[in-house]
């Protein structure tokens, strides 16, 4: 099966030969490659920078990774359908601002406000999905338009003013340190990732999403309600974008319209880096939750490490771009090598 949520959940092996094959496969897999890369870079940064292994850096690395992974997962759920969601950032900011509005203007208790914000995220995602299904257009163009619309309406309604009166309970969560270096945000992200892995591997809905993404025509003729599956994927994406935004809100203690940059565009790079490095195919139908988690983590670690190496903050982006390029090239090489060896 295509899903590799955790290494232990590899395809069942019916024979010894297959077990050996799957072990080789794992060693050649994207996930394993990412683990190697993470280990190698961690070593590099630990040796060549002072403070990379400091408690605070590990803590802040984990906290930043938590958000980036969540953003990556939000994109991943749509990539599953063979589509894209350019509006992740815009939806995330809308969810955060929605939460702030409920809290500050309506005076609702914060758990309700958070749920409201998440519902808004999921709702906007569903709007995307519905339009993609109804128009039959590629999600790229739909979400390009809605990214503009969602963000514009949000800015119009809020007058671009931040909501800043968040209760201590929420902001404390963002600063909380478990065992001195672990952010609860990271634990939350892991929980969500596990839930997604379970969804894709062990539920009908998840399987239907994958089937609808891999080959919508075949899926429909096999009795899957493809339209519904795609709307669900977009909804899930909106929900996860909302969660990522809530994490940023608790971290900053404010819901800021510019938190994802103009139109939420600043989320796009982390959003794609995670899944693409993690081996989720842009064509859809295959997903690797573990790969996305590792990919997003690698990216966060790299940008943190590059800052520490003092290569100059301004060059970090170039390195990330090169990294993405090298990673996809390696993945390509690995795939074709596998294909040759497997079949020749």
């Amino acid at each position, binding site marked *: 099966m295509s899903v590799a949520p955790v290494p232990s959940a590899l395809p069942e092996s019916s024979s010894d030969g297959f077990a050996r094959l799957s072990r080789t496969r794992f060693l050649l897999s994207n996930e394993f490659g990412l683990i190697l890369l993470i280990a190698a870079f961690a070593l590099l940064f630990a040796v060549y920078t002072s403070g990379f292994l400091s408690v605070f850096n590990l803590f802040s690395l984990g906290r930043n990774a938590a958000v980036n992974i969540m953003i990556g997962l939000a994109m991943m759920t749509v990539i599953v359908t063979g589509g894209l969601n350019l509006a992740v950032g815009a939806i995330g900011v809308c969810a955060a601002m929605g939460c702030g509005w409920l809290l500050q203007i309506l005076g609702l208790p914060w758990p309700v406000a958070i749920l409201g914000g998440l519902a808004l995220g999921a709702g906007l995602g569903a709007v995307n999905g519905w339009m993609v299904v109804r128009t039959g257009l590629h999600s790229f163009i739909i979400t390009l338009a809605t990214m503009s619309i969602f963000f514009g309406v949000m800015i119009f309604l809020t007058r671009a003013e931040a909501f800043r009166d968040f209760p201590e309970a929420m902001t404390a969560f963002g600063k909380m340190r478990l065992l001195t270096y672990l952010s609860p945000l990271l634990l939350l992200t892991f929980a969500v990732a596990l839930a997604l892995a379970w969804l894709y591997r062990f539920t009908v809905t998840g399987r239907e999403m994958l089937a609808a993404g891999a080959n919508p025509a075949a899926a429909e003729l096999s009795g899957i309600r493809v339209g519904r599956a795609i709307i669900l994927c977009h909804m899930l994406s909106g929900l996860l974008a909302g969660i990522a935004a809530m994490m940023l809100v608790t971290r900053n203690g404010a819901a800021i319209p510019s938190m994802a940059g103009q139109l939420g565009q600043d989320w796009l790079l982390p959003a794609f880096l995670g899944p693409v490095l993690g081996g989720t195919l842009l064509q859809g139908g295959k997903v690797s939750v573990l790969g996305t988690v590792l990919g997003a983590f690698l990216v966060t670690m790299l940008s943190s490490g590059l800052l520490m190496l003092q290569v100059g*903050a301004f060059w970090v982006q170039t390195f990330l771009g090169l990294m993405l390029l090298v990673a996809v090239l390696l993945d390509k090489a690995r795939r074709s090598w596998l294909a040759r060896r497997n079949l020749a």
Partner: protein
Amino acid sequence: MTTIFRTMGLAALMGGAAATAALAADDSKLALVPGGPHPYFAAWEPAGADAAQEFGLAGSDYKVPQRWELAQQNQLLESLLSQGYNGFMIFPGDPVGAVATAEELAEFGAPVIAGGGCYKDPSPAAFCLGTDTGNSAYLGTKELLAAMGDGEKRIAHFTGFLVDPNTQLRIDAVNRAAEEAGATVVQVIADIDAPEPAEEKINAYLAAHAGDVDGIVTTAWVPAVVAANALRRMGDTGIHMVGIDHDEVVLAAIKEGIIDGTMIQNPYGQGYIGSFALARMRSGCTVKEDAPFGSNALTDKFIDSGTAYVDASNVDGYLDTMREETARILADFEATYLSCP
């Protein structure tokens, strides 16, 4: 421009030498972190370097987030702390949203001050060293109103990022000054402290409403540059304008008589004095509770880094103005604001 500031720094030093002679080399590794890339902050870099050399610090480095974005600034600050920086002057990416990170820095024992713009109280920042932006905008508007002379006074106000805590202060100040003089602010255009949106919105506005405006006040760097250019392009419109900051375009426009003047701020002084203060705080000084702080909408611990109006009469000597200002503040800074062991 760097050299200009270096000479300026040396001048400032002479004024403040008495106060600083006692400082020995220490392990203060300071970071001066703006909210994002912006020409205004460029002067922090030479200021930090000069201060580090003068006061014998391990370093006072200007570190810029890649983009004008809170998340970028947070990540940079976290990284700098991990790298061993132990004192921070920060322009908060968001007056509230940036507090959380400042608190974390403070928890690790690093003194934090706000520079250029302020945190919203309560915050761990010892004080906020910046232009009294409200006052600067107020004075600038007054100068504009004076330059406009008699007759109808309709003002357009072009200002910076709404996420910048100063922007609202400026809008309020301009409105207040206009009200006092019986003038009306007919348009406020904000969020245009980047060239392209500024170019588009200001030009579009002037294209449509040049006849409905008698004066322009700009309270952010880029809008000042763009508006000055637009007025030059439009030729004789009878529109008066007071800009802000010392961009070459603005200064040239003053000399050519296209605009009336500009409100100079003192970023170099912020960087220089900020470094000094952080170093002193690291060596045990504390901020006096009863110091004569100013206050604004965000904080009650405000120190004005100085502002001055420059017009055609003194545009060539504007540097002297700032030099004097920096020297003046530094001279009695320690005595006024710090209590040292």
